[in-house]
């Protein structure tokens, strides 16, 4: 075992080894048990000075874990969702909801309430004109709402189709 490697172990223990050197040393430590033994001894000395207990890592500690890890699946990395991404999706969802609400409201008020349209027409046109009467009659006959209530004065569809001929 070279002094150069032991010097690097000493530096590594003190977190004073450069990144690339540390990676190289870890590779050597992983393949050479005697180097790991040296690191364990240095670490045990350092710890004993602080705790008054000499505790050395058992030989084969890291190898046991490595063997265990080999049987484990690779950790499932959950994709981090950033706040920005979440915000975009939320904004899109809110926009769609608003659009859907507005469209529904306009359909309800303009297309699916014929009685309302009929009343509007009656209010706006002059009350006694012939045209007013004709339109009012036409609208009453075409009102599905009125049909549904079987009102007495509602004309059947055949009569309405004959209206133009008159």
């Amino acid at each position: 075992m070279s002094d150069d490697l032991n010097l690097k172990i000493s530096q590594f223990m003190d977190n004073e080894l450069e990144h690339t050197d540390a990676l190289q040393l870890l590779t050597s430590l992983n393949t050479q048990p005697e180097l790991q033994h040296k690191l364990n001894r240095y670490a045990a000395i350092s710890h004993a000075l602080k705790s008054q207990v000499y505790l050395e890592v058992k030989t084969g500690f890291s190898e046991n874990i490595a063997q265990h890890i080999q049987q484990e699946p690779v950790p499932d990395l959950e994709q981090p969702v950033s706040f920005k991404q979440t915000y975009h999706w939320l904004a899109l969802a809110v926009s769609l909801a608003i659009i859907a609400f507005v469209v529904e409201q306009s359909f309800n008020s303009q297309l699916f309430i014929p009685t309302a349209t009929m009343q509007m027409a009656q209010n706006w046109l002059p009350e006694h004109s012939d045209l007013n009467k004709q339109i009012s009659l036409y609208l009453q006959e075409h009102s599905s709402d009125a049909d549904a209530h079987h009102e007495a004065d509602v004309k059947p569809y055949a009569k309405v189709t004959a209206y133009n001929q008159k």
Partner: protein
Amino acid sequence: MINQPRNSEQLDEELVSRVQQGDKAAFDFLVIKYQHKIIQLVNRYVKDPSEAQDVAQEAFIKAYRALGDFRGEAAFYTWLYRIAINTAKNYLISRTRRHSDYQLDIQEVETMGNAPQLQGMDTPEQLLLNEEIMTTLNKAIEDLPEEMRIAFKLREFEGSSYEEIALAMGCPIGTIRSRLFRAREAIDKQLTPLLE
């Protein structure tokens, strides 16, 4: 306690990223790097060196399984430290349930990490050996040449960086690096007969 120099954190970030991409060998590096700290931390709770190694092993395996969720918001060692403490506490609770006629509550477990560690040396032989090692260790430090001893003490007891020691002792960083290495080698040589 969890202060890690930037160098060390960058290395951890790279290794964690490699593990998350499927490189299992990178996790071996993380184990080698932190095995001593984690075993010693766990031993503060478990107070049995042999059990501490088993619990530490379990903590590392738990950490590996959870690495997919690790986002790097805290330093890797801080995250690993929490896993190790929780594993040690869970172990203590389950051990107490198995072997004791009294229930250990969570507050007792919390305070165990602060208790003196010598309680873990539960046989007279272990106690005697530890005492002998500590006497030899202290003597080995006192036997070091003065410049080596000062550098070693500044590093081990004050936690000074190489740069700080170099400034304090008025010599290049390379000299400090060499002095610290030689000090460790000298101490290790004196301990070897006791440990083998």
